[in-house]
């Protein structure tokens, strides 16, 4: 099959942002987290997505701040590279090629220029054994550097993040796996192992889950599967180590984290409570409960003012000063599964599917952002494993979005199934859904399908269930009461067969219900069985009426690799084709249908019109696994593509879920070009600070500057601003990817200083005195400036104000050499 270049498959619905521990920047303004193949940067105060760091070609498995430069960040990925980024401007500085898939990354301030990576053991490539290696990152001017000098530190470690931690001042590293804690001392180059008994007899599960080392003292905290936290001390010998136990969690301790000063230990687990242990008084603890979902990671900002907790429902919570949840960064909730179909809310045009347990989430596809969760079950959710709780299993909107029907179900093993059907009316007065009717036990068995009739005259809902019936529910109008309530209007069945699917025709005049091998067609007006269609063998899995010009066709997909198309006028089979269709979806705005077929472990997509024999579009090997959910979402603005292959995307867009719960869609080249063209980059200088304190200081400094300008020579600070010097401008405005690393630039600056003192001695002498005077003058203001630029400014500001004429000349000289100066620098 021809690969269509103009149609691309793209990710939507964000990626998992709770996959690895996030990083909060030094100034607490940004939060960085691994999200699929990129690193996302969020603002901690507004929870907005700021930008992303793109470049990795596989899953990003770890993000850490560069300990030597707090404006840079390392990220590692399963594609075998470690990349260094400038996260404020989203610039890739360097790529280090390691060559093995990397599972986690650890850094320490003491080990400058070295990163510690978890990679698979070289000899056992296929097995699940991992080792911790130290990689010395080579200094070189190239953008892509091979770093293949790996030195093993620890063997047989756990690939999970949080299973290793650096101790006080990076003197040792602690790693846990299974029932064993291993501490490696760098000075002694020696490791100690401490094992726990499996302790299975009491039912206690002693296995380690996570580790965190105290930043100031020799103490290691480890979390365990049974909910205990052990504090290890005196572990620099084999024998006389001690540990004390803290116990509050009833489930496994998922993550542990010490605050930067080591006064507190934070722990979290499935209870969705952040526990805050005081280090010195270990029996004292504070709690931050009701965080919504199980905590998977905890991160603390370097100044200890912000905490962030990652949760299992793809959410990062930002907590201010230990007690207040200040922001929630929420991705598409990917819970245990999607039981509801993907549906589009006609009112908000949002995608609706299962969200948090017992909720429906509304996800804006245009903005790629979760809007909110709608609470359906309205029962306290108990955060514990192995409980059967109510879950929304089905949902449907009527054509205008005035009614929402939800089915909630509690699946109990071996006991009665509890089902509730709820019908919600959208109340325009209060702008919210209002519960209208609750039907307990609407069916005696699971509900397999639920649809509203698209007909504008009647408001009708049809549910089919495994108990062998389908029921039609009708809104009964009461003339005296303002609102009517829903009541059952008809119960239908066919030879005690179990109905699996149903579908309304576009005008609501026909209802087709698939009873295993038989398709029955009913008239909802009189509830007469009009006809039966059958094409054995194989039970009908999916039914779909054609739309618009193809409304005379009814399509059915059966389990036995058959896609049939019946003509309803002649009541005969129009065509059938052997296809293992897992999902059939009709575009509500056109005649097109999408069929997902699973073939040898991957899914294919065919888009076709029922009346035409040739598919409009087909894509083989779309993704691995079966596609279970898909939906056509109407576009805001119609595309005007005339190309035959992309025409089916003009009116609506097809979204689908892969087996791994990734939300994918198709986009055309024209659409992307339009998006790119419509936006212009806005470069706005943001160096102006804000606080009243700064205004005061700034005024003071301004006065000082004026004084200086009056007193000293015209070479005041004003002229040293970037726009004053062409050379610096040239340097700073060169795209960052052609520049050498920041450490080189820094070295160059220093060297230029040295040269200026030797070569330009004659003019140096009087200049020197002046500069000293200047420095004395500006000492008072130097501090706020430094702090300020650390907080706000891009890194280039450090160099700029300190430049002198001589440096300028040097730079100019450097510039005249064109780019050969780089190589000359490399040589010396």
């Amino acid at each position: 099959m021809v690969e269509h270049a103009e149609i691309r498959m793209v990710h939507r619905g964000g990626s998992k942002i709770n996959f690895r521990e996030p990083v909060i920047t030094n100034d607490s303004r940004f939060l960085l987290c691994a999200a699929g193949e990129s690193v996302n940067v969020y603002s901690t105060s507004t929870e907005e997505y700021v930008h992303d760091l793109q470049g990795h070609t596989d899953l990003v498995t770890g993000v850490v701040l560069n300990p030597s430069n707090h404006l840079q960040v390392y990220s590692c990925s399963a594609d075998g590279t470690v990349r260094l980024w400038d996260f404020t401007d989203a610039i890739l500085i360097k790529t280090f090629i390691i060559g093995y898939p990397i599972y986690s990354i650890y850094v320490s301030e003491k080990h400058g220029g070295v990163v510690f990576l978890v990679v698979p053991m070289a000899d056992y490539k296929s097995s699940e054994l991992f080792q911790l290696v130290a990689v010395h990152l080579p200094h070189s001017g190239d953008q892509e550097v091979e770093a293949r000098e790996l030195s093993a530190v620890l063997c047989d470690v756990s690939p999970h993040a949080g299973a290793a931690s650096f101790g006080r001042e990076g003197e040792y590293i602690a790693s846990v796996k299974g029932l064993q804690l291993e501490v490696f001392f760098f000075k002694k180059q020696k490791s100690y192992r401490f094992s726990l008994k499996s302790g299975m007899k009491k039912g206690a599960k002693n296995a380690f889950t996570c580790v965190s080392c105290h930043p100031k003292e020799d103490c290691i905290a480890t979390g365990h599967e049974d909910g205990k936290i052990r504090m290890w001390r005196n572990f620099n010998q084999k024998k006389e180590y001690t540990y004390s136990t803290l116990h509050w969690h009833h489930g496994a301790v998922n993550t542990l984290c010490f605050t930067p000063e080591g006064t507190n230990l934070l722990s979290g687990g499935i209870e969705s409570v952040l526990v805050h242990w005081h280090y010195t008084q270990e029996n004292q603890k504070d709690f931050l409960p009701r965080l919504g979902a199980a905590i998977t990671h905890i991160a603390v900002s370097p100044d200890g003012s912000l905490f962030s907790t990652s949760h299992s429902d793809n959410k990062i919570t930002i907590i201010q000063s230990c007690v207040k949840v200040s922001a929630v960064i929420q991705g598409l909730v990917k819970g245990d599964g999607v039981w509801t179909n993907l549906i589009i809310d006609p009112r908000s045009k949002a995608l609706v599917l299962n969200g948090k347990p017992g909720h429906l989430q509304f996800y804006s596809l245009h903005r790629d952002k979760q809007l909110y969760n709608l609470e359906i079950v309205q029962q306290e959710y108990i955060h514990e494993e192995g409980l059967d709780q109510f879950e929304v299993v089905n949902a449907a909107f009527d054509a205008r979005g005035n009614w929402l029907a939800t089915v909630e179900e509690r699946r109990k093993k071996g006991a009665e199934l509890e089902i509730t059907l709820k019908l919600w009316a959208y109340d325009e007065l209060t702008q919210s859904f209002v519960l209208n009717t609750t039907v307990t036990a609407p069916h005696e068995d699971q509900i397999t399908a639920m649809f509203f009739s698209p007909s504008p005259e009647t408001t009708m809902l049809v549910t089919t269930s495994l108990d062998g019936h389908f029921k039609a529910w009708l809104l009964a109008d009461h003339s005296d009461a303002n609102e009517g309530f829903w009541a059952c209007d008809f119960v239908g069945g066919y030879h005690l067969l179990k109905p699996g699917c149903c579908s309304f025709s576009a005008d609501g005049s026909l209802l087709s219900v698939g009873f295993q091998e038989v398709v029955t067609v009913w008239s909802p007006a009189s509830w007469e069985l009009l006809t039966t269609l059958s094409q054995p063998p194989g039970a009908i899995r999916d039914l779909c009426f054609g739309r618009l010009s193809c409304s005379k066709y009814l399509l059915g997909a059966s389990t036995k690799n058959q896609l049939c198309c019946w003509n309803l006028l002649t009541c005969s089979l129009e065509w059938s084709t052997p296809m293992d269709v897992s999902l059939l979806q009709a575009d509500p705005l056109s005649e097109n249908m999408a069929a997902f077929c699973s073939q040898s472990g991957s899914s294919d997509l065919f888009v076709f019109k029922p009346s035409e024999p040739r598919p409009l579009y087909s894509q083989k090997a779309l993704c691995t696994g079966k596609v279970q959910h898909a939906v056509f979402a109407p576009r805001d603005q119609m595309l005007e593509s005339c190309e035959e292959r992309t025409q089916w995307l003009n009116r609506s867009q097809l979204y689908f879920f892969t087996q791994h719960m990734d939300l994918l869609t198709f986009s055309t080249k024209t659409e992307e070009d339009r998006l790119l063209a419509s936006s212009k980059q806005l470069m706005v200088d943001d160096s102006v600070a804000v606080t009243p304190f700064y205004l005061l200081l700034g005024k003071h400094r301004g006065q000082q500057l004026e004084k200086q300008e009056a007193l000293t020579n015209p070479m005041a600070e004003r002229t040293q601003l970037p726009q004053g010097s062409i050379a610096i401008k040239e340097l700073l405005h060169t795209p960052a990817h052609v520049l050498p690393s920041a450490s080189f630039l820094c070295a160059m600056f220093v060297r230029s200083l040295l040269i200026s003192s030797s070569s330009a001695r004659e003019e140096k002498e009087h200049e020197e005195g002046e500069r000293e005077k200047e420095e004395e003058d500006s000492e008072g203001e130097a501090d706020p400036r430094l702090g300020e630029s650390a907080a706000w400014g891009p890194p280039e500001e450090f160099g700029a104000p300190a430049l002198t004429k001589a440096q300028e000349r040097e730079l100019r000289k450097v510039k005249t050499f064109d780019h050969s100066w780089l190589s000359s620098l490399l040589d010396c």
Partner: protein
Amino acid sequence: MAAVGGSSSLGLPCVFSPKSRQYLALCAQDGRLRIWNTDIKTLNQEYVPSAHLSATCTCISWGPCRKAKEGPQRKKRKSEAGQVENQVDLLALGTAAGSVIIYSTVKGALHCTLDGSHSGVVNCVQWHPEDCLLYSGSDDTHIVEWDLQTGKARCKWKADRAPVTSLCVSPDGKLLLSAGHTIKMWDLETKEVYRKFTGHSTAVTTLRFATTRPPDSDGLYFLSGAAHDRLLSVWQVREDGKDKNSVVSFNLTDEPHHIDLFTSNSKEEALRLAVVCKDGQLHLFEHFLNGPCKKPLSPLCTVQMTGVEDSPIPVPLLAAALTTDTHSLLLAYGNHLQPVMERVEVNTAERHVCLTRDVHTTLSLTMETTVSKVKTPVVNAKSKVVVPGLPGHQAPVKGALGSEKRKGTDAKEMSIEERLGKIEMSSEKAVKGAPSLQTDNFAVLLVQGLESKDANILNKVFQTRKDMLIKKTVARVPLPAVLPLVEEITKRMQGHPYTAVLMVRWLKAVLMQHTSYLASLPDLMFQLGVLYHMIESRVKMFHKLTKLHGKLYLLMTQVATSSNEVKDVDHTAKLVYEEESSDEDNASGDEGLPDEDSDNWEEDETKEDKVEEGMRMESKVTGDSDIEPGNESEEE
């Protein structure tokens, strides 16, 4: 194409974000800037400018959409993250102190401050659509062009003798409109006056370009609105320069406060315009701009909003935004401190649309933003609960009168009315004719109760427990009253289980006595269908319950035999504290609330009754006899 959101200098500034209208920026009376999310209708962020009381915000303008940074190594892989709609970020605020604040909504912080060029109140700020430029007009009669890359004023020129009240940059970024004493059109490259327009006598508050055509094509139009002026004027920029007067004007009910428009890109495309006036009404216009038109145009549709109070108070609309779909509008209404945003479908075929909205329930006093992002739908007592057995859970049983089924309950009720009328006639006769001396039944009382639907009488009758009495009563009920009796029994059985227990005896008696009459009825299925469904659903669990009961009984007896071996513990209390008031309480209870007391008594009785029955049944179960249907329903 939607024009970049403008600002109004009179009234409080209130602007939707451009393109996708995701946010509403609003500066309320308290000087704070609030940004509301129109998708979720919640407060997104709040920003307090450092001098919000002295230098209040006078105008707001959203910056153009941000672009995703084009990385140098960007490759088109098979499935990379898709391009999402660009986010809006920057917001320019003009203040009364003469400074312009740039606020970043993504970072939630001040981006930079532009000051030092204006000496008066900034009346208007406008972004250049392409370059990083910002224009501001002020009371000091000057226009300043700010270069945002440096944060400095790039150019400043005197625009007029009067304060500059409004500005507008053309969509192609080449022309600038300014309003002071007169409306001037500037060429932005040379900063020279291109055209001059006069006509407004009061301060011009609104200037907007209506078309996107070049100025020398005779097709460039713009519109202007002024304070205290109930007309919106449209001006044509003509090639020959003869453009002294406005060509078209739109009729309004008050001075315009907020304008949103879809510019027309060609002659065939109409200009769509939504104007929110000072009196809180919204006017929608659609007009093809092709030359002058004498008469002022009246709106295509006017939208008003009222509250839900008894004497409806108009709810002022604050802002409106058009969408690509001609029928739907995005509205913001209520007060500035807490506006309500809504996407509405408006039927533009009607001249006047009045929407009723309950602003007060959506308004809460606490301004705390919900970080949890969970919406709880309203669940109140008004909702109906349908459980198995109640009508509505199963389809109504089809009788012979299948055609009547669709009409549902109405038809049924009508027939009952009629029937009741008939009963009245005949039963009166029956009452008169019957010997009224008999005291061993309630037949007369029951018939009276059924006729008058008197709940008191019926309660009294139905509380009887003596089987004989019930039997006799039912036997003497005249035939026409049987059906109403069945209806009444059905209704009561759907109620509380305790009353259902009582009603079972009655139902049993009716079925025993009047089967032949009931069987003769043509719509028997229809009448007894509800009863049938109810009984069926209630006995569904019976089998399991009897099983459980048997197991429990076995367990209990074993426990009892084992506990006999244990020595009896002295259960008498060692110390009894007698409360004096307890007697009094009882006494007063007896006196004051006889009804309640009798209810309790009754309940106790039924409980006892039930236990007795359970015991009886148990003996039957163990004696493996068949269970009567009557007993089944009694258990339920």
